[in-house]
């Protein structure tokens, strides 16, 4: 078995993340999942947008490109159609993926195109200095919410489910072996797959919210995460301020988009041969 280091680009290390950041842990989980599944690394493409999360593909030695803020899913859609044999993985942050890129996320889920979105949710805009994101908790402090955040975060897993994603899961950096398993399951799943990983940002989020030590942020993940099986038995009140982890949705009743397009091509060719609707 190869080590994580075997999949890294030596010239790109050390990485640029702050001490205590969870992004590197997610990179480790992703690499271990790919290695465990024995996916040919030439057939892996990692696409990112802008933000701390976007730097994951600098250090991982796969096909990779970094795109514009929030648009990685759009780029990935074109790339997947052009190269259907590739495993196309989008890694986004919460600002990048659920904020500016939220529209693309729901539509890619609706199309059920076989791309894998790993949303690293550190609940803040990290790279730009700790402004609140659409996933920052209500009442939290951020550099643009110095009194407190009066916007409610949304549950992107529920949104993905409603939008038509066929694989939805959530893990945390604290629950790392679960997270690794969820990423592997997403990689194996055919169709639009969404895996959210709750992570910690001591610099942008923790220091303003009385959790300056990454350990405290990891403990917060531990205390607030509820496994999906357990969550089903809890009341709304008991689930207040908690979030669900585990495999939230797996469905096989929707055709994958690239495959549907291949069938469409056959139909169009038959139509052309028969003179179509002329």
């Amino acid at each position, binding site marked *: 078995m190869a080590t994580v280091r075997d999949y890294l680009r030596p*010239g790109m290390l050390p990485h640029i993340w702050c001490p205590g950041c969870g992004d590197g842990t997610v990179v480790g989980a992703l690499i271990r999942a790919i290695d465990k599944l024995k996916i040919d690394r030439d057939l892996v493409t990692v696409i990112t947008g802008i933000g701390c999360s976007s730097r994951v593909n600098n250090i991982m030695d796969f*096909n990779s490109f970094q795109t514009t803020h929030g648009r990685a899913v759009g780029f990935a859609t*074109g790339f997947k159609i052009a190269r259907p044999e590739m495993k196309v993985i989008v890694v986004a942050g919460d600002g990048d993926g659920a904020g500016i890129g939220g529209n693309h996320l729901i539509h890619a889920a609706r199309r059920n195109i076989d791309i894998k979105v790993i949303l690293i949710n550190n609940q803040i805009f990290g790279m730009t200095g700790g402004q609140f994101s659409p996933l920052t908790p209500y009442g939290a402090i951020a550099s643009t919410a110095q009194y407190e955040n009066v916007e409610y975060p949304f549950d992107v897993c529920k949104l993905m489910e409603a939008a038509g994603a066929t694989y939805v899961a959530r893990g945390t950096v604290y629950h790392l072996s679960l997270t690794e398993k969820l990423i592997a399951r997403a990689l194996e799943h055919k169709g639009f797959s969404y895996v959210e990983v709750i992570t910690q940002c001591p610099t942008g989020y923790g220091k303003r919210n009385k959790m300056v030590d990454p350990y405290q942020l990891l403990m917060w993940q531990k205390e607030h995460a509820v496994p999906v099986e357990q969550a089903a038995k809890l009341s709304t009140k008991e689930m207040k301020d908690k979030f669900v982890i585990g495999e939230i949705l797996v469905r096989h009743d929707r055709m994958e988009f690239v495959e549907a*397009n291949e069938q469409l091509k056959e139909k169009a060719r038959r139509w052309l041969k028969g003179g179509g609707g002329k």
Partner: protein
Amino acid sequence: MNKGKQVRFMQGNEAVVEAGITAGVRFFAGYPITPASEIAELMSIRMPQVGGTYVQMEDELASMAAVIGASMGSVKAMTATSGPGFSLMQENLGYASMVEIPCVIVNVMRVGPASGMPTHPSQGDVMQSRWGTHGDHPVVVLSPSNVKEAFDLTIEAVNISEMVRVPVVLLSDAIVGHIRERVELPDPASVKLIERKRTSLPPSEYKPFAAGDDCAPEFADRGNGYRYHMCSNVHNEWGFPADSGHEIADRLMRRLHKKIEVFQDRVTYYKTFEVEDAEYMVVAYGCVARSAKDAVKALRSEGIKAGLLQLQTIWPFPAGIVRKFCAGAKKIIVPEMNMGQLINEVRLASGRDAAGVNRADGIAVSPKQIIEKVKAVK
């Protein structure tokens, strides 16, 4: 289908679709907008027939992103839109310039700003096509005046984007897009197609942004060991961010610009009419060139020595061509369906003043208006 030469009665937007297919485009991503919607509609029919893909994206930002993604995956790709949608594509258009990804964007211009007059033509996006995205960046913009030119220039747009590795804009308009004309389409087998240069280096020696004398880097299809990174930050030859490297930034910017200079002659298209002894030189482009040609004919019949220089390439601005043809003229006239955009480039290139004929109300500049202007400045 499409065997040998064909005579067709077709719309400008339809010509763009057929030309794209002839040029090898096999991916189209778009979002409906008047007066460009027919391109998306026809692409949705034609793409699957030729083994390609049509995707209707959720907006123009995603359309442009998907087009670049497909081209990164080695498939020739294009999109089509109009002014407001073109504005939304600008960020990713800049991305394509910076990362040197070939692609074609058709802008069927309508009256702006904002929603303007959605069904009426204009030439209001001349400067947006040049400077719409942020930063210093090179562009190539072609402008057809009729259905045949829409066909031919779409093929050139695809070829140029592949050859130079730059996004190319086809600046059409509601007149060219919607008019129906008789056109002779060439035998697809006779059309010269250009593919981006593929590297012959092994993966271990390949650098995605290393360029030779022509400044256009060689492409490597991903897979088979070609495992590389691209990003739109200022990047080194390996494609990794070098955002603090002023020297690298300088070298990259200069190469991107020089690349267009190197290819300038090969991307410059124009037509002339009665220019040999012209005393009144009309410089026009797009749909207005049609009116200008009629005006020149009418003026000639009255014994007034008028001539037409029709610019089919408007960016990079063919300053040398304009200078050459305007040198002997007593007066220069630039009719445009805007309040005066390319006229300033003509002034700059010729070193002379020029008289504009301008309207931005969605009504075509008529031959009569041009004739009157020539007589007025005479």
